């Protein structure tokens, strides 16, 4: 990569991980070039920018690549620190924010994938697990406006892209997020009032179309 000045994001339209980066950049008002990757035919640039994992998102800042979505978000927060701080300033609150963002990373996507990939008993087990995950997040959110408290923060950015997958999870596994985690459902609506989120998140119906496409591809009935 030539050390071109500027910010570029290698991404894939429906990726909740890529959307984390997009939301963070939007919150900070950073101008950047968006490059849509074809994941079945990865570009030279992507392979060069992320040789270890060959995955999106990758943020390229002045020619230097940053990989892994949560690491990208912390980087964005630290570099463009003059506006919309995402991480709290207190070390204990920061540790809590990192813990819960990591929790979302470890649990939500994997469990969500099992909801549409599996059937029968295995799907029921995944559904039970997803409900537990949502209820833990519900307890963590409590009566706060955001996971970050009064201000939209790191955990909000980490989790909010998955809210456009709720419709798919609900439809595939037959349950209601609002029914099991009403505060999370309210929080999701509140987040959509933010321009950064509204402009970034995929339409839940489009996500569902994508999930159906994946189901066909993986031969899931």
């Amino acid at each position, binding site marked *: 990569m030539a050390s071109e000045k500027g910010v570029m994001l290698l991404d894939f339209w429906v990726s909740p991980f890529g959307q984390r980066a997009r939301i963070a950049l939007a919150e900070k008002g950073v101008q950047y070039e968006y490059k849509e990757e074809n994941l079945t035919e990865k570009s030279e640039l992507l392979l060069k920018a992320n040789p270890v994992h060959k995955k999106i998102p990758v943020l390229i800042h002045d020619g230097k690549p940053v990989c*892994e979505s949560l690491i990208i978000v912390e980087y964005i927060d630290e*570099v463009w620190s003059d506006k919309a701080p995402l991480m709290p300033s207190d070390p204990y609150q*920061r540790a809590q924010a990192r813990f819960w963002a990591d929790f979302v990373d470890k649990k939500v996507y994997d469990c969500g994938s099992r909801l549409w990939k599996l059937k029968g008993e295995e799907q029921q087990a995944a559904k039970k697990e997803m409900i537990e995950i949502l209820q833990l997040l519900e307890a963590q959110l409590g009566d706060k406006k955001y996971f970050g408290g009064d201000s939209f923060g790191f955990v909000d950015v980490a989790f909010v892209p998955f809210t456009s997958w709720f419709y798919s999870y609900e439809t595939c596994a037959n349950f209601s997020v609002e029914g099991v985690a009403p505060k999370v459902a309210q929080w999701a609506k509140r987040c959509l009032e933010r321009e950064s989120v509204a402009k970034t998140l995929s339409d839940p119906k489009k996500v569902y179309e994508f999930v159906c496409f994946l189901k066909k591809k993986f031969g899931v009935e």
Partner: protein
Amino acid sequence: MAGSGNSEVKLLGAWASPYVARARIALNLKEVQYEFLEEQFGTKSELLLKSNPIYKKIPVLIHDDKPICESLIIVQYIDEVWVSSGPALMPADAYDRALHRFWAVYIDDKFVPALFGMMRAPTEEAKAESKEQALASLQLLEEAFGKISKGKPFFGGDTIGYLDVALGAFVGWMKAFEEMNGFKLLDDAKTPLLCAWAENFCNNEVVGAVIPETAKLVELAKVMQARFKNAPPAN
């Protein structure tokens, strides 16, 4: 380093856990007085279950009765709280921080499972696969070290940093596996930089106090391997 009486810092851990070692090394580097509460192998204390209800795992740092979980998060917390004690563990530059974080996550996601995979592997084939993955990971870490250290002894430069702690905590177990399996994980020919790094890291006196003796780890590994062999097969 055990605190006396009114410790405000407690660490729930176990002598052999490399994740716990990360926390202990960080606390030692920052000269923090703390009480080490050893969990018994095979059981979980009330305090652990209360402090880490989500994962029920060690290490847990308890600072003024507030628990912090996940070893890498604990190390960053220690670095941020005891900021005026000793050199910073995290680099000053945001991009360098992103690199340290990236490789620390890589170590947890790719290297460590392969390393312990060699012990847990049910077949020779699976064991060979884990070994290959472990060696490949170390090769990538060798290259990363070259770029990040910029000729200095540690990932952190002149002093031990976050990524040194993240990887260095596993050196004891690496030596144990080398001994048990009769091959080198860190090889002068293939990973000369990491060989030198490992020596520098272990020679640091606060580190030396934490990394368990290879012989003790080998003994423990044999006990654990026997358990895996005798355990009924997972469904």
